[in-house]
């Protein structure tokens, strides 16, 4: 016990008087929550893989068809304010925004270790801004996908314009469903992340963590934020690129 007391500061001890895995209770529980969330997201992405493998694909796809699984680079070709086709560029920008907001989050955590309140505030604000920018881009992406093209898809005399849960001009309806579920579930995570970030920013500003003596809450919300970024890395590769 003497050695434990020497290396572990009192604030980290759990109610049983020890510190399992040398992690605070909150951080450890955040890790296990993220683990369960990772399983949920892999369930969604694996469903996408299953659906894609169970549909025929057409590598030289020139027109869309309800029979063939669409190539994402033929579907997501629009960037705001322009009319030139730019496949996946917008998604690339979204990825960049989210990675950068992850970086500002680590910088906030680093500032928290030094008890530098002003720096924590600055980096938390950048992170929140990045989160909002990402959500805005995603709303735009959804709008483009839901609105669809002017002509739409005409198959067996029926015209389908845009995509929703019942019809999809770019391919099987399942593709649209999975798009809404996967990016929607991720977007909900980003939204809740932004809200928690705002709450933590407020607490930083009124000096709550200075009073407690450490900025561990910034670290915990940071873990969540990086996880959301990580999920996007997977969505980017396995939904948009492959």
């Amino acid at each position, binding site marked *: 016990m003497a050695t434990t007391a020497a290396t572990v*500061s*009192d604030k980290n001890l759990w109610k049983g008087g020890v510190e399992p*895995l*040398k*992690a605070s209770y909150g951080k*450890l529980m955040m*890790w296990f929550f993220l*683990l369960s969330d*990772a*399983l949920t997201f*892999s369930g969604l992405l*694996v*469903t996408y*893989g*299953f*659906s*894609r*493998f*169970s*549909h*025929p694909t057409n*590598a030289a796809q020139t027109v869309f068809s309800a029979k063939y699984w669409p190539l994402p*680079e033929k579907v997501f070709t629009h960037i705001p304010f322009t009319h030139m086709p730019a*496949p*996946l560029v917008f998604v*690339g920008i979204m*990825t*960049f925004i989210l*990675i*950068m907001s*992850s*970086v500002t*989050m*680590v*910088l906030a955590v*680093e*500032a928290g*270790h*030094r*008890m*530098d*309140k002003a*720096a924590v505030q600055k980096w938390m604000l950048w992170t929140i801004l990045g989160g909002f920018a990402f959500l805005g881009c995603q709303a735009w992406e959804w709008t483009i996908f839901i609105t669809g093209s002017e002509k739409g898809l005409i198959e067996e005399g029926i015209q389908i314009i845009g995509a929703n849960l019942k019809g999809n001009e770019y391919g099987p309806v399942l593709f649209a469903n999975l798009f809404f579920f996967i990016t929607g579930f991720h977007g909900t995570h980003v939204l809740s992340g932004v809200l928690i970030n705002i709450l933590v920013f407020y607490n930083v500003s009124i000096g709550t963590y*200075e*009073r407690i*003596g*450490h900025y561990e809450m910034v670290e915990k919300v*940071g*873990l969540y934020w*990086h*996880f959301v*970024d*990580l999920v996007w*890395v*997977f969505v*980017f*590769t*396995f939904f948009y*690129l*492959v």
Partner: protein
Amino acid sequence: MAHAHNDHSEIQILPPDKAKIRKIWMTTLYLGLATGIEFIAAFTMSAGPVKTILFVLLTFFKTFYIVGEFMHLKYEVKMLIWSIVMPVTFICWFIGAMLTEGHSVEVLRDWVQTWYTNMIQK
């Protein structure tokens, strides 16, 4: 650190840790480069196993840096690392099983379709 705990009225702000911040930006650079390579490969390489494997490897590379450096898992105790990584390995089985199953559904769908068409023609 010890001061900050004993004395709450006086908060000691430490100067930025240059080495740590440099490491954060280096990690950012690696993540950016990996994403850049993925982006270029998406347009220059033709679809096939090589392209898919490249994407998977780069995604793992990014995961390693995000989880290891940004989420700090690399510096936690070994038992904590394993208790996160071990359950995740089950997902690999999940992916393999479901992709095989999905492919089987496609093959059988064609087979059933052909069988049905032939039956009608007879």
